[in-house]
């Protein structure tokens, strides 16, 4: 079975889907691995390292795509690339299936088995394949550090001969995987950390990292069986905005990570809240690229609004591309391993397996994932 790994095309993307050490593990499991030349350069892996791991290096991208039985990558492909794939092949990547309907249709029509990394279920057992988590966790770390270098203050308290510097306050909205890591990182640096999330199980988790949880009574809120937040009603959102206002004004750094799975992120920091912050303060909008939690954030950019720096750079994990690659690659390896049939030395889609059942979107010319099927039809 031939696994093909093409280069990532998105500009500035330094991550790589499979790193040499995982390529080696795949080869050892009996797979043939073919990579596009120059695959790992962005993260500092040379072609030679892949060759040493037992992979073959091919210069022709089209050859990689059209010959592979399994394609492993990070970003979603273009529709043209899908057309080059072998019928019956397995394609694993982020797909954004809630929005990219044309892409899904193209996979269906091409008879390709498309696996969406976003749709890996969130069970305890599937965590090792969960790239959303692994990348979000790094994002949490990166966002804090980016904010810190923009803030004209230091985070920790210091009592020095030249006076006492008060600790900076960091407010984190949305304490999922990324938010929690952000809390931990800011806390490590000595900041006072306050966080808010609509799911109330999170309060304890925030405290478990030494953060303070901002209590806002929103009435009934919920979470799905996968641990994702349920969208708030408009009324609840207003309550939340009201409750956060003071905290935002008092904070030096605000980091928003609030997402609702499959929907546009809610706006949680409004223009006047931004204006109410101290000059020099910093906001990081994790979701700027998909709409954002912050009014005034610009996707992919760092802008200054009313003396406040708003960071909307996006692709956060890419800042620590080497570690991000290692984790993503490990997620992919575990996924392939989960479907690996030792006898046949091939990856097999077993719909009895709850993990594969969740993340396979198209198979044999059908859209097999119920949620997506309903969306597209």
């Amino acid at each position, binding site marked *: 079975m031939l696994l093909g790994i093409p280069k990532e095309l998105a500009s500035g993307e330094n991550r790589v889907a499979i790193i040499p050490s995982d390529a080696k593990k795949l080869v050892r499991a009996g797979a043939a691995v073919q990579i596009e030349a120059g695959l790992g350069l962005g993260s500092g892996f040379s072609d030679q390292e892949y060759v040493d791991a037992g992979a073959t290096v091919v210069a022709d991208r089209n050859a990689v795509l059209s010959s592979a039985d399994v394609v492993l990558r990070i970003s979603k492909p273009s529709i043209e690339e899908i057309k080059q794939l072998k019928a019956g092949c397995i394609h694993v990547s982020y797909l954004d299936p809630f929005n990219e309907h044309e892409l899904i249709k193209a996979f269906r029509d091409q008879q390709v088995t498309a696996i969406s990394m976003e749709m890996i279920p969130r069970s305890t057992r599937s965590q090792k394949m969960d790239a959303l988590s692994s990348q979000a*966790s790094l994002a949490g770390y990166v966002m804090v550090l980016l904010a810190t270098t923009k803030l004209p203050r230091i985070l920790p308290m210091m009592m020095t001969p030249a006076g006492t510097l008060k600790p900076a306050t960091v407010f984190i909205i949305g304490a999922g995987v990324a938010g929690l890591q952000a809390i*931990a990182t800011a806390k490590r640096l000595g900041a006072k950390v306050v966080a808010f999330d609509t799911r109330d199980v999170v309060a304890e988790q925030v405290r478990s*990292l030494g953060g303070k949880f901002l209590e806002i009574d929103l009435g009934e809120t919920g979470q799905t069986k996968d641990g994702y937040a349920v969208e708030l009603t408009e009324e609840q959102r207003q309550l939340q905005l009201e409750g956060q206002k003071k905290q935002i004004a008092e904070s030096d750094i605000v980091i928003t990570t609030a997402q609702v799975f499959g929907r546009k992120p809610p706006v949680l920091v409004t223009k006047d809240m931004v204006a109410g912050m101290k000059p020099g303060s910093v906001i990081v909008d994790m979701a700027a690229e998909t709409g954002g939690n912050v009014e005034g954030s610009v996707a992919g950019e760092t802008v200054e609004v009313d003396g406040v720096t708003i960071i909307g750079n996006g692709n956060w994990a890419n800042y620590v591309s080497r570690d991000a690659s290692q984790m993503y690659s490990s997620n992919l390896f575990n996924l392939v391993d989960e479907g690996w049939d030792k006898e046949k030395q091939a990856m097999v889609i077993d719909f009895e397996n709850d993990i594969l059942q969740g993340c396979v979107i198209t198979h044999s010319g059908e859209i097999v994932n119920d949620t997506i099927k309903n969306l597209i039809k």
Partner: protein
Amino acid sequence: MGTELLVNLSYVAAAVLFIFGLKMLGSPATARKGNLVSAVGMFIAVVVTLLDQSIIDYKWIAVGIAVGGIIGAVVARSVAMTSMPEMVALFNGFGGIASLLVGWAALYGMDASTFQMITIVLSILIGGITFTGSLIAYGKLSERMPGRPLVFAGQRFFNIALIIAIIACSVLFAMNPDVSLYLYLVIGLSCLLGVMLVIPIGGADMPVVISLLNSYSGLAACAAGFAINNIILIVAGSLVGASGIILTQIMCKAMNRSLSNVLFSGFSAVAGGGGAAKIEGEAKAMSADDAYYVLEAASSVVIVPGYGMAVAQAQHVVKELQEILEKNGAEVVYAIHPVAGRMPGHMNVLLAEADVSYDLLLEMDAVNPRMETFDVAIVIGANDVVNPAAREMEGSPIYGMPVINVDMARNVFVMKRSMASGFAGIDNPLFFKENTRMLFGDAKEMLSNIIKAFS
């Protein structure tokens, strides 16, 4: 009367020395001196006794002391360090037989009152049990006898019958002191009882047994003291008797066993039948104090933290316990499950905060293969990540997920507040395992209590 008073006041002094000696023996810094102090007490007691006017002939005394002294000294010097425990057992047995003989001999010196008869019988009885029990313990420890529990069908009934017989003979003898048969029966049967009591106990439990028998030999001396009306025997004997019981208790706790479990587990093995059927028993709770005894005696410990450690913010106390255990001579490592906590690297953040060295953090795969070698696995607020259902129960939602196999360690301490399940919401058979103890309570408080127990 003058000498007698002197003798007796010297006995008071000897008793004081014994008390100091025992006290000092309990602490590492003073133990050796304590032994010396108690030896001086013994020396005084023996020397002044020789002044006693009722002693007419020193010949036999000299013979006895010479023989005993030489044997004792030679054996004590030559025995290998590794065979100390069995040597102690042997010495203890000799103490027992001596009490038996003293009690017996007391029959001939005087007209014993009923009270004295009772004490004489007691000293013979306890002395006999101590004697043969110790010999068996010696045999098991020195591997002159098979170490495994020796059991046979009907053993329990046999022992009950034996005890009844002993009581009967004792009563008969106390009422008819002249009938030597009863005396011999009492002697014989109590020796037999000593054997019977110890053979069903496994070799590994022998130290506890010896400690108990040591306590008995104290009681035997005490009984002999009553028999011959000698206060120093009463005082020293009961001191040893009582402190021996406490020591036995401490040793049991250090093995995470109860005394009755030690003494009678052999029987129940027979009673329960041959097969080692898997029993889903009750979860066994444990106090911090008892946990201390086990940890104090442990030489390798693995700590498995989970989300509960984070909730309790117990990381600093964990580090503190680690240091105390290390100072106590134990090896301590942490086993970190990849999904422990509620975010990737959750445990790392906390343990780094507490300045736990990175070198001590082991991945699951590094620690599982050597899990059997750990004396204690301390699970601190973890649940799903140590759930053996992932290994054992095919239907379980986490079946197939690798977990940290703490249940394979010798002892497992689980610190959590209740029997509640973890994130995955599934029951945990670990809590019901034979070698698991539940330390219910907030992890931080529980750990602080254990730390406190380390004096």
